[in-house]
């Protein structure tokens, strides 16, 4: 019987059909998905902070409205993803606790600080650009609710990337100081953006099984290469350079060659040694704890209303 279920699962995945919440699935598949989707959800929620940092100081009402909408989207993306984990039997409250207790991770990119307003533009262009590269193939991931959440998210990410690029184009038409600000932000974010695709394939422990289960559709290195190929012409159009002396077109491969990110730095940030790790978690914890009375009051209000309706 168990073999029969497993066979049916394997066949469904091999046929590129979707696994749905009430289907039988191997424990490892369920655990891997919960870990990956939760980590993804946490990244969206923590990702509100670096940019939220600039909402009150956006240089115009237009930029402020755009930034507010973008940060609100990140919250929405986090919620779509938490919703997907719950179809696997995870509990949202439990996931939030795991995040603020440091038992589950989020993307290391959000542990870097946003020093100037140009960072808002570069995050939209490069960080959301890298996220799109990662996420577009996930629209075909084998677990139905995850794939459907990714489709919604990808549609909205396009606005994120374009607003960032447009912001940078505007600054590049400005003063020398503004242009320098853009280049400085690009210099700081380029390598962390490349690290978003995860460690090299040779060191990525989860890739093989995830590819077999069709949770993951491309390897880390394939996606990184794709991102570099897409980004170089965009940088040229913008008039900025990437801080990589090894970056050049390889005629033979038909792709760009590029240098290796500092993987020691990557692991250091993953393990909690980034500039903002502590601040990000402390802020999330405070928001959760400060909001407790609102959640309790709403519950009590709902109970009272229910009683009233029952009495009427």
């Amino acid at each position, binding site marked *: 019987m168990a073999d029969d279920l497993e066979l049916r699962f394997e066949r469904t995945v091999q046929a590129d059909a979707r696994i749905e919440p*009430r289907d039988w699935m191997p424990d490892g598949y369920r655990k891997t998905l919960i870990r990956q989707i939760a980590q993804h959800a946490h990244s969206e929620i923590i990702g509100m902070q670096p940019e939220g940092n600039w909402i009150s100081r956006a240089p115009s009402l237009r930029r402020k409205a755009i930034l507010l909408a973008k940060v609100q*989207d990140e919250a*929405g993306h986090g*919620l*779509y993803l938490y919703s997907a984990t*719950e179809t696997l039997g995870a509990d949202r*409250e439990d996931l939030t606790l795991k995040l603020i207790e440091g038992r589950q991770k989020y993307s290391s990119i959000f542990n870097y600080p946003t020093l100037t307003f140009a960072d808002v533009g570069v995050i939209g262009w490069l960080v959301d650009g890298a996220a799109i590269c990662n996420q577009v193939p996930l629209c075909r991931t084998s677990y139905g609710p995850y794939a459907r959440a990714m489709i919604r998210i990808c549609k909205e990410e396009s606005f994120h990337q374009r607003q960032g690029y447009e912001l940078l184009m505007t600054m590049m038409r400005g003063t020398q100081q503004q242009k320098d600000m853009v280049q400085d932000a690009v210099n700081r974010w380029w390598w962390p953006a490349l690290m978003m695709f995860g460690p090299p394939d040779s060191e990525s422990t989860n890739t093989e099984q995830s590819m077999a289960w069709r949770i993951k559709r491309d390897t880390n290195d394939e996606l990184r290469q794709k991102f570099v190929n897409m980004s170089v012409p965009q940088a040229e159009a913008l008039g900025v350079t990437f801080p990589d002396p090894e970056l050049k077109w390889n005629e033979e491969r038909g792709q760009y060659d590029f240098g290796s990110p500092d993987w020691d730095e990557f692991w250091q940030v993953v393990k909690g040694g980034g500039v903002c790790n502590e601040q990000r978690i402390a802020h999330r914890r405070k928001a959760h704890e400060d909001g407790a009375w609102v*959640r309790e009051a709403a*519950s009590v209000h709902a109970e009272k209303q229910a009683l009233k309706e029952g009495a009427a």
Partner: protein
Amino acid sequence: MSTSWPLWEVFVRGKRGLNHVHVGSLHAPDAEMALRNARDVYTRRNEGVSIWVVPAAAITASSPDEKDPFFSPAGDKVYRHPTFYSIPEDVPHL
């Protein structure tokens, strides 16, 4: 204390003339808050003209393990499909 809010399934009608379609879930203390949260989470870009929220616990679903026997009554009734009937090609509008 943490009595967590119940889970609600959200259905959105994309535009007039279409069915409500399931889009996801959310937690809320009551139906009214669930509707407001659903508006903010699932219709930030005019994705809907109408929203239903249903307590997740109120949904009864067929089990995928019973898939074959449960749906088999439909499987052997090919005569329910128009293609079951062969009609000469020169008969119009049929």
